[in-house]
């Protein structure tokens, strides 16, 4: 019995990481229907960026990754804003193909650039023992401190993003542009700017996800596509345009994978994909769809 409880708890925590991967994707998809196939590679790029910055700041390992993340946030926002303004805005139309091809190309460029700079060796961001610390929950159950922190941050991200979307002028602009771009232009909104703000914010989330992923486990330049898949599955399971849905989608994916791993170490990932496919068949709009 304890074994099952442990499995579910570990699955929920893993789901927090997946939800974190998915949050930026959910925002970009919700606002501009853009499927960013380079999303996973941007997370890996952020992980390597944090790795290099943490090494460069010359602080003890317990503090360096957090300062690195702090330094990376403004860079990430500017990069996201610039990428959308200079490249991605030009690919958006009723035809989804140009944006898919362009982001696919960006993914290849990032993977090869990282391979060139860092080689294919897996690396991890030194966190001064945080990645091996654990918290006892009582009854013989313990969870890792870092996975717990990631989960809490993922929940905070979901709440924060949902509030931003529902309650603030910028969130109102996101929804308006998503509903009817031309009508929003008539109100005086510049959709190119609104889209770029959305991507900038998404890249903030990507920077956090990448740094924590790099602290929790090892990363190598070719990891991106797998992360993209988890992020995408979490968004679809949860339903488009709802950040709580994305959180739930990530958790469902994490728990299913954990259950699969318990049956057989080779089954975890496969179990997650099965749930995703079942969702596509029986409830294609996801659990909590907000937008169509």
């Amino acid at each position, binding site marked *: 019995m304890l074994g099952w409880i442990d499995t579910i708890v570990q699955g929920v925590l893993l789901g927090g990481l997946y939800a974190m991967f998915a949050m930026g994707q959910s925002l970009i998809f919700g606002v501009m229907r853009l499927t960013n196939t380079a999303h996973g590679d941007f997370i890996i790029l952020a992980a390597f960026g944090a790795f290099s910055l943490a090494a460069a700041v010359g602080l003890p390992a317990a503090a360096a990754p957090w300062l690195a993340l702090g330094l990376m946030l403004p860079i990430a926002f500017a990069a996201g804003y610039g990428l959308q303004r200079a490249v991605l805005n030009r690919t958006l139309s009723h035809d989804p193909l140009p944006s898919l091809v362009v982001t696919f190309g960006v993914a290849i460029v990032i993977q090869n650039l990282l391979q060139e700079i860092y080689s294919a060796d897996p690396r991890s961001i030194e966190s001064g023992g945080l990645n091996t610390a654990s918290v006892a929950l009582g009854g013989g159950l313990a969870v890792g401190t870092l996975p717990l922190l990631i989960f809490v941050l993922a929940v905070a991200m979901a709440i924060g993003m949902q509030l931003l979307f529902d309650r603030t002028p910028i969130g*109102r602009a996101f929804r308006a542009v998503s509903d009817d771009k031309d*009508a929003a232009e008539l*109100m005086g*909104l510049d959709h190119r700017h609104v889209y770029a703000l959305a991507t900038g914010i998404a890249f903030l989330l990507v920077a956090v996800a990448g740094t924590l992923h790099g602290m929790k486990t090892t990363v190598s330049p070719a990891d991106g596509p797998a992360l993209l898949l988890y992020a995408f599955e979490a968004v679809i399971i949860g339903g488009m345009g709802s950040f709580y849905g994305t959180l739930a989608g990530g958790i469902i994916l994490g728990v299913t994978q954990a259950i699969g791993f318990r049956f057989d170490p080779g089954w975890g990932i496969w179990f997650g994909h099965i749930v995703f496919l079942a969702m596509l068949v029986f409830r294609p709009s996801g659990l909590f769809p907000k937008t169509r």
Partner: protein
Amino acid sequence: MALLATRKLEAFYGDFQALFGIDFEIERSEIVAVIGANGAGKSTFLKTVCGLLKAAREAVHFDGEPIGGLRPGRIVQRGIAMVPEGRRLFSSLSVEENLLMGAYARRSGPWNLATVYDLFPILKEKRATPSTALSGGQQQMVAIGRALMSNPRLLICDEISLGLAPIVVKEIYNALPRVCAGGLTVIVVEQDVGMAQLVSSRLYCMQEGRVTLTGPSGDLTREQISQAYFGV
């Protein structure tokens, strides 16, 4: 000097020419109607004035300045607001949020949430309702209120009676005098010729991308209008 004037205005959808040299003028505080059959170019004309379609810079003058082909956002900041055909409300926004979107251009003037709710009290009751849950007439009120929220100098109403029951149309047009009380200039596009003649002081009739008739609304006869409307 006219508030809005177009000279030899042309518009294209790709290679297809939709407007052939439209000359149009509206004075301050005037209400002018544009009528014409489906496909006559009325909506194209409005889209070109609002910046949703490309135009030559000198072809459209607003308050003496050339504005043709500016981005819609720039044009609304100068004081032209549009109530688009089919209302085009933001479906995932509430009534109040839709109205607030209209204030995005940040122009100052008499219109704000309170004065719009004063004009259409039903909207205050439904302020938190999703805009899609309203009746057609109420949605049209939101669309008009949203346009007023930008405190325009020129209000353009595209087919506001389309798809509404006659009694609802009357209710909406009854609000027009209060809307214009502050000296607002209005262009009304209508398929209902009787209504257009009733509310406007002057009238333009369009056919196949050209102006075929213009004159004081009250003086034009049914025969003149039929001739200009259908070209028979």
